[in-house]
């Protein structure tokens, strides 16, 4: 089931499943999603859900409804659309595909056995020839690609083509693997407080940033979904955070922590 995620200033307030055909949004208490904020009209907008499709409609609100930065009257919601109502944000998440366990199965490494593939490729070729398709110029690999689909579709049924097919673990994954989601997180930076470059600022926009002098003392700042961490890499002394030496394990950094490394003081802060 599709759902909405209500958040304000990046803070998730609640998740609302779109279980009804009409889900109303507004300031007044009778709305399905009540947002008690003066920027939101009494009856602000409505989401109409028919099967897997959801439509958002503005009900003539005073301040309007904005989707992905554009004011709208009526909008067909797509996965990850962000609806803005004043300071509040509603993120639309379309129905999740397969459950995680099932998805993981599709991602498991599998072998394309040449014997099974050949059979399927021949089948594909025969089909293509019969259909008069332009198979002549298709590279062998293209046939293989087709073979994969075929082998997947008939993984169990290839018994006729390959006597060992019972053990051929070939199956085309049904769903494309979602790209690794880079979670939105506040950007951190450090500002040097002492040394020759005092006042200089360095944004920590890479997954990891090394600091210090090689051979003397080096630490690495890693950017993770949970936040920023500092880890000791080399040198006899470990860096200090707020005057206390850190351990061997990664140390989580908080806004305005002061780090001292290779004789240089610096402040870590979140840019928001």
């Amino acid at each position, binding site marked *: 089931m599709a759902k909405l995620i209500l958040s304000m200033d990046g803070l998730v307030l609640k998740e609302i499943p779109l279980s009804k055909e009409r889900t109303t949004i507004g300031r007044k208490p009778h709305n399905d999603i009540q947002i008690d904020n003066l920027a939101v009209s009494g009856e602000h907008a409505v989401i109409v859900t028919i099967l897997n499709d959801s439509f958002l409609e503005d009900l003539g609100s005073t301040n309007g409804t904005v989707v992905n930065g554009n004011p709208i009257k009526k909008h067909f919601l797509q996965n990850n659309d962000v609806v803005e109502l004043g300071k509040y944000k509603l993120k639309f998440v379309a129905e999740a595909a397969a459950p995680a366990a099932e998805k*993981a199965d599709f991602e498991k490494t599998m*072998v*394309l056995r040449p014997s099974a593939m050949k059979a399927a490729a021949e089948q594909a070729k025969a089909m293509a020839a019969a259909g008069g398709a332009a198979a002549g110029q298709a590279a062998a690999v293209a046939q293989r690609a087709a073979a994969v689909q075929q082998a997947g579709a008939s993984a169990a049924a290839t018994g006729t083509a390959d006597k060992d097919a019972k053990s051929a*673990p070939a199956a085309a994954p049904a769903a494309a693997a979602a790209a690794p989601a880079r979670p939105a997180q506040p950007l951190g930076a450090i500002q040097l407080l002492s040394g020759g470059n005092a006042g200089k600022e360095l944004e920590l926009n890479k997954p990891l940033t090394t600091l210090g002098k090689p051979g003397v003392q080096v630490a690495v700042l890693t950017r993770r979904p949970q936040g920023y961490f500092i880890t000791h890499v080399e040198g006899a002394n470990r860096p200090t955070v707020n005057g206390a030496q850190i351990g061997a394990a990664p140390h989580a950094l908080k806004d305005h922590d002061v780090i001292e490394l290779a004789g240089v003081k610096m402040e870590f802060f979140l840019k928001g």
Partner: protein
Amino acid sequence: MDLTHALEIVSSTDPGMVRSHNEDSVASDAANGVVVLADGMGGYNAGEVASGMATTVIVTEMQQALAGAQPHQPDPQTQQPMAARIVREQVLKANTSIYQAAQSQPQYAGMGTTLVVCLFYDDRVLVAHIGDSRLYLLRAGEFKQVTRDHSLLQEQIDSGLITPEQAKHSQHKNLVTRALGIDPTVEPEIHEYPTKAGDLYLLCSDGLCDMVDDEDIGMTLQALGGNLKLCAQQLVQMANDNGGRDNVSVILVRVLREFPAARGVMAKVFAWLK
């Protein structure tokens, strides 16, 4: 000859964030300069069995083979160094063991594994691989992939059907075209490269390279190369932070100094004695 002084080897393996089993296996033998990484596949725990068999069989068989032969000496049949033949034979032994186990025991039917093996000898590294486990090299600040996957995706890229960028989002990431233990025989792809002091080699399963961009992997090796243990942990952590949908395994091998075969030294000593 003992290579423990010339190679620093660190490995790390992790089930990831989604899988309950770890089907990857890693093994190394610094003295003989052998490192092996395998990513198993097959139902229940068969994947673990296949990858575990591959790494143990290869490491132990290599120990025996290297005790009786010098990898740098020419093979009487091909005049090439023996190393290629030694590695190939042990890989085939592992293939036979896995294949027979899969044939004889129904719960292991269809199991197999990818493989990447490195044998360091005489200032060289011999690389044998099957499937989509990879070897990367960081040399003098340059990071590159050494092996080419035996996968449908790689074939599609090679034939120009898709671009590497499209490949990142392909749904056929999991399909390998070669694996150990699936058929009665297998042909490992074998290449040999000269090594240099300071080289940093990375062997990894697809759980790393599918989840973390090559650019970020290279940056991590560069930044944390001074502390291999931390570097390995960081790589696994990055894969898990990005979703960790598969088992993640890495082996890092740092070439600390040159390791020419003993013949050079011995020959010099004899020459000097004359």
